[in-house]
């Protein structure tokens, strides 16, 4: 039997997509094509088309400037330090919460640790700066009470990376722990019972059942983290920066902001942004490929 109606009304579906396609073209695809100004001496008066080509001039300028080494080092150091220090935190929190048998206590603890995730980074940065203030801050208050000299945390470059990472831990640990908690509940409880029958203690169950059970999740999360190694969030870093500590606080993305949007050095900033995009893309492809290989190997998952 031939149907005279269609199972899919193509025209209606394309009609729904009109605003979507328009949006993506205007605010995604046109900006992507605008990256071309990285190779031109862009002048707002001439427009993109009429601005003269300069080839890789701005890339060379960037690579030969003092900023290149500095912002690359800061970006990578923040990325690496956050992998080493911040990455294990949600795993630890999830394991701790998972070990708690009292439902109400567990639920309450989870709700409390989730609180910072809902507070904007503007507020968190504001709290941090006030906490660390040498005059009225509570941390220096304690240092002073113990007889020490107040430390100017926000004005000495050596503290910046750690302050930033501490705030990241504070804000995201509770939320990321949910992912691991979900993985933990997926572990077959029979495994634990069997292990208990064999006389396994708490520690052995952790080493032989719990950790292997969530290892695939840990590896995937780790690879995702590697993929975004270079993309340090400018929204967050920017809030903690001030001119005195830029030597450690300036990362690629905030450098692009400062040169491009504050300094109106559009072509140069776009070139730096393109450099970041290319490196980030390589990292994403690299980590995706590893993740895929890993997924096909871990057949149990």
């Amino acid at each position: 039997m031939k149907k005279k109606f269609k199972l899919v009304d193509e025209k209606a579906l394309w009609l729904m997509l009109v605003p979507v396609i328009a949006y993506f073209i205007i605010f995604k695809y046109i900006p992507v094509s605008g990256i071309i100004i990285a190779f031109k001496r862009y002048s707002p008066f001439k427009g993109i088309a009429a601005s003269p080509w300069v080839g890789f001039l701005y890339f060379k300028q960037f690579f030969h400037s003092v900023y290149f080494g500095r912002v690359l080092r800061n970006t990578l150091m923040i990325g690496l330090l956050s992998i080493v220090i911040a990455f294990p935190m949600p795993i630890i929190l999830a394991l701790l919460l998972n070990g708690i048998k009292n439902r109400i206590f567990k639920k309450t603890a989870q709700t409390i640790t989730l609180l910072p995730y809902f507070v904007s980074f503007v507020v968190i940065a504001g709290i941090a700066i006030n906490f660390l203030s040498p005059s009225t801050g509570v941390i220096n208050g304690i240092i002073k009470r113990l007889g020490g000299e107040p430390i100017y945390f926000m004005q000495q470059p050596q503290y910046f990376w750690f302050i930033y990472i501490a705030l990241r831990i504070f804000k995201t640990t509770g939320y990321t722990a949910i992912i691991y908690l979900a993985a933990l509940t997926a572990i077959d409880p029979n495994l634990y019972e069997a292990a208990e029958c064999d006389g396994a203690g708490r520690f052995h169950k952790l080493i032989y059942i719990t950790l292997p059970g969530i290892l695939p999740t840990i590896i995937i999360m780790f690879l995702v983290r590697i993929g975004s190694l270079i993309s340090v969030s400018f929204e967050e870093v920017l809030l903690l920066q001030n001119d005195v500590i830029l030597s450690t606080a300036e990362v690629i993305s905030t450098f692009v902001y400062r040169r491009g949007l504050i300094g109106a050095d559009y072509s140069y900033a776009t070139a730096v942004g393109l450099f970041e995009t290319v490196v980030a893309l390589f990292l994403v492809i690299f980590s995706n490929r590893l993740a895929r290989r890993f997924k096909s190997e871990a057949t149990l998952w």
Partner: protein
Amino acid sequence: MKRRSGSIIPDVILYLIVTLICIVTVYPFIYVLSASLSDPQALYENRVVFLPVAPFSVESYRLILRDSRIWTGYANTLFYVTFGTAINLIMSILAAYPMSRKRFSGRKFMNIFVSVTMFISATGMMIPLYLVVKSLHLLNTRLSILIVFAAFPFYVIILRSFFETIPEELFEAARIDGASELTILTRIVLPLSGAALATIGLYYLTNRWNGYFWAMVFLNDEKKFPLQVVLRQLIVLASMGEEMDANIGKAATNAEAVKYATIVVATLPIAVIYPFIQKYFVKGVTLGSVKG
């Protein structure tokens, strides 16, 4: 089942560690609350550690609540969050529904068209996006905040994955009964997707509530600033500034308490609401992992 002997002590340690983590997490917020209610002089002398120090004062609240910037910021944020999230949801639904229809000819194209844009980093897009917004004469308009981030490709893909879990037969049966695509979407798909819509809606909402960067870049008229941009001025920039002049005078002590009161005023609504909506975020984590 009976507990093995000797497992009580590790349990106690476990509860202690988790309690400690909770204390560390809430301490900053309790301190902020205490500081905002304390005698400003006590704050200056570092006497506030945990609980408010008498004589209690609500003077800082009186000052901050009289500040029109906070109210304007709140009103603007309310506007951006309400209409912005509505636009986000409508656009995401309009994108995700056709992409989820297995017989739709444009399905593959749209999937690539949307996903590819996730690969360009935010830093790479920063300047070109700004120039596009500028050339469209959208700078310093409320409209820019609403439409420049009308849809996030990642959330579109998540919603599409959710729609795909609805059996295709359901759509086709409805088609046979003469239902239009719009009817299927509004009568079948949307009612079945309440939890998924709530989840991505809340993600969009938190993005809108928390974001300050693009509002700061696009807008220069204070009357249009959302709350976060105002907060950045009142509690971040102000504090950075005064930290520069090593020792601030006594005059600034009241300003300090006002800053803490500002944080309370800006955070209290969220802190009260989030325990009731957190389950959607927990759900969102599992929704996100469906993708792929």
